[in-house]
């Protein structure tokens, strides 16, 4: 199993924990990751809110680098995954978009590089039986609310990732790791995404209702696979608490951090020390000291 791994900009900053744990888990499961040299930003939400050419050309610059490696692209950041797949779709279905990209990149690209999310690689290529076999320290019934957010599942026609209203990819992994995945209604609700700084009030409102729901179903932690969701849910808990007088302390962990623990990797290597809301309860459950 060999993939061109596109880390995305967050991997070097607010999601270094996601990046570290992705690399550690891949190593433990025998997934070979090659980082395309000189990868650049996918444009994220700012790109597609500003201009179509930017929104498509910025991801395409990376897809062509992966095409040269003759590998499939693997992405862990849900936002990057989304932009890569939408760009492929736009380029392959609109000749005028393809022409614009050709002018912007000074090379032609047909939109054919296969883009996979890490969860798809884990579930389809590695497979749950192999993951179960590799678990050294199970989650011992840890109650996990699996949160997918927006960009992994929408737009469903283009992404074709799981069920867009009730996805179960994260839940199946949690179950395979010996955890209890909780039934809850906020799986695909929006956290406010890129409005974190420009409309903090909106993000506090939206993350507040997600955290409320996770608390009411008794979650020990929320598992995510998107750096924007992680930062919003993790960082804004103190704002939610300040505004509402509640005292939520629900750790927001990447699925790769949970899986890494189960595979016997130390919490330091998985970036557990970077979480704003400490995950001591999670570590205790797998008998690991922080």
């Amino acid at each position, binding site marked *: 199993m060999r993939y061109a791994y596109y880390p995305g900009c967050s991997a070097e900053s607010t999601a270094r924990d996601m990046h570290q744990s992705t690399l550690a888990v891949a190593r433990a499961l025998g997934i070979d990751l090659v980082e395309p040299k*000189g990868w650049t930003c996918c444009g994220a939400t700012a790109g597609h809110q*500003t201009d179509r050419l930017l929104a498509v*050309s910025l991801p395409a610059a990376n897809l062509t680098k992966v095409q040269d490696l003759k590998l499939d692209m693997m992405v862990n950041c849900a936002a990057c995954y989304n932009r890569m797949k939408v760009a492929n779709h736009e380029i392959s279905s609109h000749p005028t978009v393809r022409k614009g990209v050709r002018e912007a990149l000074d090379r032609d690209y047909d939109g054919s590089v296969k883009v996979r999310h890490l969860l798809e690689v884990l579930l389809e290529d590695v497979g749950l039986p192999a993951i179960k076999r590799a678990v050294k320290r199970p989650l011992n019934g840890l109650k996990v609310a699996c949160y997918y957010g927006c960009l992994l599942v929408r737009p469903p026609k283009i992404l074709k990732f799981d069920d867009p209203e009730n996805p179960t990819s994260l839940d199946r992994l949690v179950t395979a790791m010996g955890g209890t995945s909780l039934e809850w209604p906020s799986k695909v609700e929006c956290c406010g995404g890129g409005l974190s700084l420009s409309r903090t009030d*909106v993000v506090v409102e939206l993350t507040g209702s997600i955290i409320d729901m996770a608390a009411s179903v008794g979650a020990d932690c929320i598992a995510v696979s998107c750096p924007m969701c992680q930062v919003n849910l993790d960082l804004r808990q103190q704002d939610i608490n300040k505004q509402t007088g509640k005292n939520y302390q629900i750790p927001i962990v990447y699925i790769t951090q949970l899986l890494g623990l189960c595979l016997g990797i130390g919490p330091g290597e998985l970036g557990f020390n970077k979480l704003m809301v400490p995950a001591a309860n999670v570590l205790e459950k797998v008998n690991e000291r922080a």
Partner: protein
Amino acid sequence: MITIKNKKNGPGLKSAVEEISGVDISVCFQCKKCSSGCPVAKLTKSRPSEIMRQLHLGAGNELLENDLVWMCASCETCSARCPMGIDVAAVIDALRRLALERGASKQKGNVSLFNRAFLKTVETFGRSYEIGMITAYKIGTMKLMNDTEKFPAMLKKGKIALLPPRGGDRKTVKRIFRKFKESKGAQA
């Protein structure tokens, strides 16, 4: 209730939005599923279904000042649930792009300033640089103290990078931005 003011600001936006988004506005039959699922609709003055109806009824540039246009989080729930397959989120994106082109007045929170600050770091470094972007945005909005209490802890935990990113193919990204600016004329 939806009212279209007599004092419409300029010609209707329907055809411009349809051209940018590729959406046929007229197929919307106002089932309001988009508004039911919209996470920010409870906070905005108008709902996505109202924007669709207003466009259909010939609304002009006044729609570019609508608070939903910039409070939309691009979650795409509206598009995913539309029974007619309308990409409502693409309509909102089209309105944002038109608002930028036509210099519509700035909304609370100034999402367009945030986007510019973000893209400027991408243009400069090839990858986004959070601290650079946050600084440019804060200076632009003059809200210097927002969230500052969080930075020491984030820096200490290594939850945010202090130095700008290196290693990105800046040449290709600069070329993309040059083509983008050429396509927009001098205004970008």
